[in-house]
C-alpha cells in the first residue's frame, strides 16, 4: 500500500507545520483567526441611534460601534479593520456562539442566566442603563404605576420583556404585551397608537424620542426606571486572552481619561516622565506582550478612537443624555480601571 504511506507522511508533515504556527500564536484562537482574516468581526444592532447607526455617509457611528473600533485597534493596530455584522435580538447570541462574530457589542444586558447558560461571558459594561417606559403625552399618564391594563410594545427575546412582566406582577397590575421583532415595526405600532406604552432601555427611549425632532414633545419618558440594565460587551467562553484584551482596552480608555490623554494630545505625552503613562503608551514595560498584542496597543486605541470621555461626547451627548453614573470613578461614575502595570 504505497499510496497510503505517502498520505500518512504528508499528513504528519502538515501537522508539524501547523503545530509550529500554533506555537507562535497569541494563545487566543479568536485573535489568531482575526489576524489571519485581517478583520475583527463585530456584532452590533445597526439600528439604534447613539449606539450603532450608519450616518449619512454610511459610516457606522455610536457607542457600540466605537467599542468595536477600540477592540480592533488594540487587536490589529488599525481601527478601520473592523467589519460590522448586523444582528437582531433573536440571533445575536447564536451569531456569537457559532463564531459568526468575534465580539458582540450590542447593548446586551448582563444577567446571570445569560452568563451561565449561553457559553458566553460579559467582558465589560459600556453603558449602565435601566428599563423605562415611553408614553404619549396626550394619554395623561405621569408615572409607571398608572399603567394598569395598558398595552405595552416590547422587543421579543430581550430582558425588557422579563423586566416589564416582573414589574407588573410586583405591582399587581395587568398588561397586554405586543412583541414585534423589527425595531421600526415596534416604533410604528407605538406611534400609531396600537400600544399605550413602549418599553426598552431608557437610553434607547431617550434617543428615539430625540430622533422625533419637533414632535418629541408629544412623547413623555416616564421617570420610573424599573430594572438595572448594565449593557455589556460579550465574548465566547474558553478564550481567556481575548476576554482579557477587551477588558484592558476599556481599562486603557478609562486610564487615558483619568490622565487627561485624548486622541488630540496623545503624541505630546510620548515624552512624559509619568511611569503610568509610559507603561500605558508602551514606551516601557511589556504590557502588550502579556496580552499577546502590539506594545503600542493602548496608543492605537487612544489615537484612533479616543478616551472614554471622547467616545461619550461624540456619540451620546448629542442625544441629550446626561453622563450620570457612566462617568469615570474620579468624577463620581462607575467606570473604574484596574492599574496597567
Amino acid at each position, binding site marked *: 500500500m504505497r499510496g497510503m504511506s505517502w498520505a500518512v507522511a504528508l499528513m504528519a508533515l502538515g501537522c508539524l507545520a501547523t503545530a509550529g504556527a500554533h506555537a507562535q500564536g497569541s494563545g487566543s484562537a479568536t485573535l489568531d483567526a482575526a489576524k489571519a482574516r485581517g478583520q475583527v468581526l463585530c456584532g452590533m444592532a445597526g439600528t439604534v441611534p447613539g449606539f450603532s447607526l450608519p450616518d449619512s455617509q454610511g459610516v457606522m457611528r455610536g457607542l457600540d460601534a466605537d467599542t468595536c473600533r477600540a477592540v480592533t485597534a488594540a487587536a490589529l493596530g488599525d481601527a478601520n479593520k473592523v467589519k460590522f455584522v448586523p444582528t437582531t*435580538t*433573536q440571533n445575536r*447570541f*447564536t451569531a456569537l*456562539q457559532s463564531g459568526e462574530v468575534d465580539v458582540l457589542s450590542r447593548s446586551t444586558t448582563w444577567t446571570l*442566566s*445569560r452568563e*451561565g*447558560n*449561553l*457559553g*458566553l461571558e460579559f467582558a465589560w459594561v459600556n453603558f449602565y442603563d435601566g428599563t423605562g417606559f415611553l408614553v404619549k403625552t396626550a394619554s395623561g399618564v405621569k408615572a409607571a404605576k398608572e*399603567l*394598569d*391594563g*395598558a*398595552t405595552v410594545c*416590547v422587543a*421579543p*427575546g*430581550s430582558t425588557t*420583556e*422579563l423586566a*416589564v*412582566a*416582573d414589574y407588573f*406582577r410586583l405591582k399587581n397590575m395587568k*398588561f*397586554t*404585551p*405586543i*412583541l*414585534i*421583532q*423589527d425595531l421600526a*415595526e415596534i416604533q*410604528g*405600532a407605538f406611534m*400609531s*397608537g*396600537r400600544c*399605550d406604552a413602549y418599553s426598552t432601555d431608557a437610553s434607547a427611549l431617550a434617543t428615539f424620542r430625540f430622533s422625533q425632532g419637533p414632535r418629541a414633545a408629544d412623547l413623555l419618558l416616564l421617570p420610573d426606571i424599573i430594572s438595572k440594565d448594565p449593557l455589556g460587551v460579550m465574548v*465566547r*467562553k*474558553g478564550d481567556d486572552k481575548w476576554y482579557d484584551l477587551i477588558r484592558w482596552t476599556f481599562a486603557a480608555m478609562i486610564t487615558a481619561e483619568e490622565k487627561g490623554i485624548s486622541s488630540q494630545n496623545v503624541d505630546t505625552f510620548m515624552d512624559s516622565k509619568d511611569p503610568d503613562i509610559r507603561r500605558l503608551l508602551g514606551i516601557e514595560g511589556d504590557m502588550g506582550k502579556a496580552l499577546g498584542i502590539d506594545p503600542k496597543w493602548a496608543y492605537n486605541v487612544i489615537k484612533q478612537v479616543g478616551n472614554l470621555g471622547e467616545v461619550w461626547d461624540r456619540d451620546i451627548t448629542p442625544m441629550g443624555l446626561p453622563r450620570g453614573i457612566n462617568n469615570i470613578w474620579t468624577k463620581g461614575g462607575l467606570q473604574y480601571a484596574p492599574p496597567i502595570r
Partner: protein
Amino acid sequence: MSDATIDPRLTGRAAPKRALRLSWSDPRFRAIVWQVVILGGVAIIAWYLISNTSRNLAARHIATGFAFLERTAGIPIGESLISYNPAADTYGRALVIGVLNTLKVSVIGIILATILGTLVGIGRLSKNWLMARLTAFYVETIRDLPLLLQLLFWYTVLQGLPAPRNAMSIGGAVWLSNRGLKLPTLDWEFAHTAAVIAFLIGCAGTWLWNRHARLRQEATGDRPPVWPVALCLLIGLPVVVWLMSGAPFQWDIPALRGFNFQGGTNVSPEYFALLLGLVTYTAGYIAEIVRSGIQAVPWGQWEAAGALGLKRGAILRRIVLPQALRVIIPPMTSQYLNLTKNSSLAVAIGYQDLVSIANTTLNQTGQAIEGIAVIMAVYLTISLSISLFMNWYNAHIALVER
C-alpha cells in the same frame, strides 16, 4: 372441452417464487445489499453529526437538554386559549400556547381559504364578464406580491382603526378599535353544556330519522316528512333542556375602563391581519387549483348533463365537482401545508404563534438547537396530520375503476 385448462389468473393462487440466491446476479440480493449500504451510510453521517454537535456544545459550555421546559417562563404572552401566568407557568406551557395559537390561525385559515378559493375559482369560469375579469385580476395580483408584504399591509390598515376612546360600536355590545374587535361573551353555565349535548343528540336523531325516511322511500315510494322531526330535535330539544335547567342568559359586555375594554372576548388586530393575509393569499392559489380541476372534467359531461335538462348550477354541483375533486385534492394538500407553515410569519406582526414563542424561549435560555428542534417537530406533526387526512379523503372519493 371438459378437460380445458383453467386460466391461472382466475384461481387466486399466488405466483411461484424462486429462492433468494446469494449471488450478485440475483436482482433481489443486489437490492438488499444496496439498501443496507445506503442506510448504513446515512446512519453513520447522522451519528457523526449528532456526536460532533454535542461534543462542540459541551466544549463551549452551552447548556443542552430539554430541562428548560420545566423552568418558570417569565415571558409575557399576549393572547392564549388556555390560562397562562408568567410567574408560575413553565416554558413547556408557553410552547403549548404557541402551538394552540398556530392551530387557531391554521385551522380557521384553511376553512376560510378553501371557501373563498372555491368561490373565486368558480367565479373565474363564470359567463358573467365582470365576475370573470374581477376574479382573474384578484388571482393574478395576489399571487405576485410576497406574503410578508401583504401581512404588513393588512396590519397597517388595521392600525388605522380609531383608538379605544373613539371606538366604533354596534349596539354598545360589539366594539371595533385599533385594539381589536371586542365581542360580548355568554357566561357559560351547566345549562348551556346540557343544551349543547341535547343538540348533538338531536343531530344524531335527525340523521337516523333521515335514514329511516330514505329506506321507507326506497321500499314503498312514500317518504315521510323530515323537517318537522328535525325542527323538534335540533331546536326544540336543546331549548327545552335549557329551560328546564333554569334558563340562565347572562352576557359579559365589554366596557371601556382606563386604557382598554375590559370584559368580553377580543379578536386582536394581529390575529385578524394574519388571518386576512393568509386567507386572501392562499385563496388565490386554491382558486387556480379549483379552476384547473373543473376544466379537467371532459366537456362531454357538461353536454350530457345539459341534454338531461339540468341547470348550470346543478351540473356543477352534482356532476362536475365530484369528478373534479380527484384532480383538486392532491394540490390542495400542499396549499394547506403552505398556509400552516406561512403562519410562522406571525412573528413579523406581533402575533405570538409557536415560532414567535419558541424564538423568545431559545433567546432567553440560550438553547438554540432544542428550540429549533421543537419548532420542526411541531410543524412536522401538524403537516403529517394534514397530509394523512387528505390522503385518506383522496382515497375515499376516488372513482372505483373497472
